[in-house]
């Protein structure tokens, strides 16, 4: 175990987190994700999936425990170093698209890391093509459909060329066709690790291989997603009836 820390990937040990005046949400959670893994994070509402993901990028500070990302210990002074390696997509794309146009939303990250306007635009142009958004580059965010907003948010996050991608319920509000498109895009992304929280078991099983179930503040199940989907009694027991 000890060796994993300084290596690539995500290494989490004994994470404890609680909101003020509440019960702990994460209770001594430990987890290792190696490069190349695509992982689904499952669990019913309010089990702490979003909270856990936010601790990984330092948005929530755990009471105790260690987080190592790509061999770097997450702490105040490594925060921006770690964040530059992680792409994080919130559940609601509106939260992520705060600049007036799509193009500006995509160049926002690269500009913050000191790239020139030209270089940032080049990155953005590539991504716009990849996501089929060329036509909308200068359109205001408020004139997009839900699916387009989702793609724009993803493009904005990928502009930083993250090694690790974290998505919080990415299929929310998408129609089946967009869900398929998104799955295909995700499978082709050049990132090392993908972690996806989702309630859509069927969809997430198409883009990930390993599944974790979070409950009572710990990872209770850690299995290949195909095995898990076959084991309906386990799923049922964690409040995830497969037929819904």
């Amino acid at each position, binding site marked *: 175990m000890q060796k994993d820390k300084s290596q690539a990937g995500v290494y989490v040990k004994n994470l404890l987190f609680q909101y003020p005046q509440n019960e702990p949400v994460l209770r001594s959670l430990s987890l290792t994700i190696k490069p190349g893994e695509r992982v689904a994070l499952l669990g019913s509402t309010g089990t702490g999936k979003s909270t856990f993901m936010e601790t990984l990028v330092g948005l929530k500070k755990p009471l105790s425990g260690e987080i190592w990302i790509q061999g770097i210990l997450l702490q105040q002074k490594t925060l921006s170093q770690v964040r530059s390696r992680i792409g994080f997509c919130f559940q609601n794309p509106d939260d992520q698209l705060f600049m*007036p*146009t799509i193009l500006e939303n995509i160049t926002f990250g690269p500009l913050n890391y000191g790239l020139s306007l030209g270089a940032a635009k080049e990155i953005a142009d590539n991504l716009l093509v990849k996501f089929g958004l060329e036509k909308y580059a200068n359109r*205001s*965010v*408020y004139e997009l459909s839900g699916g387009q907003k989702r793609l724009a948010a993803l493009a904005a996050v990928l502009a930083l060329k993250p090694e690790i991608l974290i998505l919080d319920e990415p299929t929310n509000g998408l129609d089946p066709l967009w869900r398929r498109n998104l799955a295909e895009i995700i499978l082709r992304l050049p990132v090392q690790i993908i972690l996806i929280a989702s309630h859509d078991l069927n969809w997430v099983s198409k883009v990930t291989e390993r599944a974790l179930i979070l409950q009572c503040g710990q990872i209770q199940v850690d299995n290949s997603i195909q095995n898990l989907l076959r084991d309906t009694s386990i799923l049922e027991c964690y409040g995830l009836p497969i037929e819904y």
Partner: protein
Amino acid sequence: MHISEGILPARLCISSYGLTSLITWYSLRKINRLPNPQASIPKASLLTATFFVASSIHIPMPIGSVHLVLNGLLGAVLGYYAFPAILIGLFFQGIMFGHGGMTTLGINAIIMGIPAIFAYQIFQLRHILGNKIRDNLSMKIFGFIAGATAIGVSSLIFFSLIITNIPSGFNVSLEQKAIYGLMISHIPLMGIEGILTAMIISFMHRVMPELLPS
């Protein structure tokens, strides 16, 4: 820029309540004459809540950080709803955070609200004076003036009230100098508020022009 409880004499608190009621009554009368006054209530309320939330943002400055007031923007965007909206925002700030309070609600509403009404008039002037320039530029110019003036007038009223009502032992000319001094030290703040007001208005103009009063 809120006057805390306990500083001002009660007489001033009460008479400012009177003035505030009068302006509120006048604004409500204007609102009630709009074609569909009810339709704007949710809009004005959510925008009030937005301003309340936005004024919690801290803008870093060379010395410490300032938090925004945005009463100029509020006036420019909300028009006649601005005064009631400010009254409500101040009410919440008073009872939730203790910025200002119940007895000083009237005076604080005047400090923030009257400049907001000015800001609205200034911003509307662009239809008359800003005809010849591009739309976006005139929005920015008048937005800047509205935002900077509003905060300027607010701080002028605020400091005059504080200096003249705190038993500082200053004589009249010293008081005046103190007010001038404080005003000059607030010019950067006026600049920041003006710039941000102009930028926000231009953002809205690009993204959702129907949000701005025509």
